[in-house]
């Protein structure tokens, strides 16, 4: 029973991650691609983590995997925001010297 649950969770996690990879390739706009990249940092990793926790429990291996997935989940939205901000600057034709804050004198 436990092995079936691990297999199902792993299959779901891998499928979610592959769908996100395909979504990044299929979408035409950088903002749409960011949408799929964000999903790739939350759905897939949590399902893989769940599979690992079902097998290992809260041993040292499980705790280390929790740390990795927590780092992915908490840190990557910041990167997504930074990339979206850079894309907005590029699309608006802003540079460091002509940005809304004035930039260099």
């Amino acid at each position, binding site marked *: 029973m436990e*092995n079936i649950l*691990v*297999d199902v969770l*792993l*299959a779901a*996690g*891998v499928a979610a*991650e*592959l769908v*996100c*990879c*395909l979504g*990044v*390739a*299929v979408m035409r706009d*950088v903002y749409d*691609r*960011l949408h*799929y*990249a964000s999903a*790739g*940092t939350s759905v*897939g*990793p949590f399902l*893989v*983590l769940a*599979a*690992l926790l079902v*097998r*290992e429990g809260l*041993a*040292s*291996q499980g705790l*280390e*995997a929790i*740390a*990795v997935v927590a*780092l*992915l989940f908490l*840190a*990557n939205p*910041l*990167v*997504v925001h*930074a*990339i979206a*901000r*850079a*894309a907005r*600057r*590029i699309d608006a034709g802003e*540079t*460091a010297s002509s940005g809304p804050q004035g930039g260099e004198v």
Partner: protein
Amino acid sequence: MNAFETAALALIAGFVPLGWVCLRERELDGVVALELAGVVTTLVLICLAEGYHRGIYLGVAVVCSAVTWISGFVFARFFGRL
């Protein structure tokens, strides 16, 4: 070959569309693909550590996730400044 090794092998297939985006689309789209490739790499390392029953290998996944995060910021900052 256990379930985690199979999962790692299947996840590696995800690099193909991401590599295509890096090669064919504009630079910022490539950064998005690179960011997701870092996440996929981290998951592959987790699956391999569990598949080989070597808990110590999870340290590599921790480092990979941290480096992915830092590189995303560096690339976003660089391309936003051009």
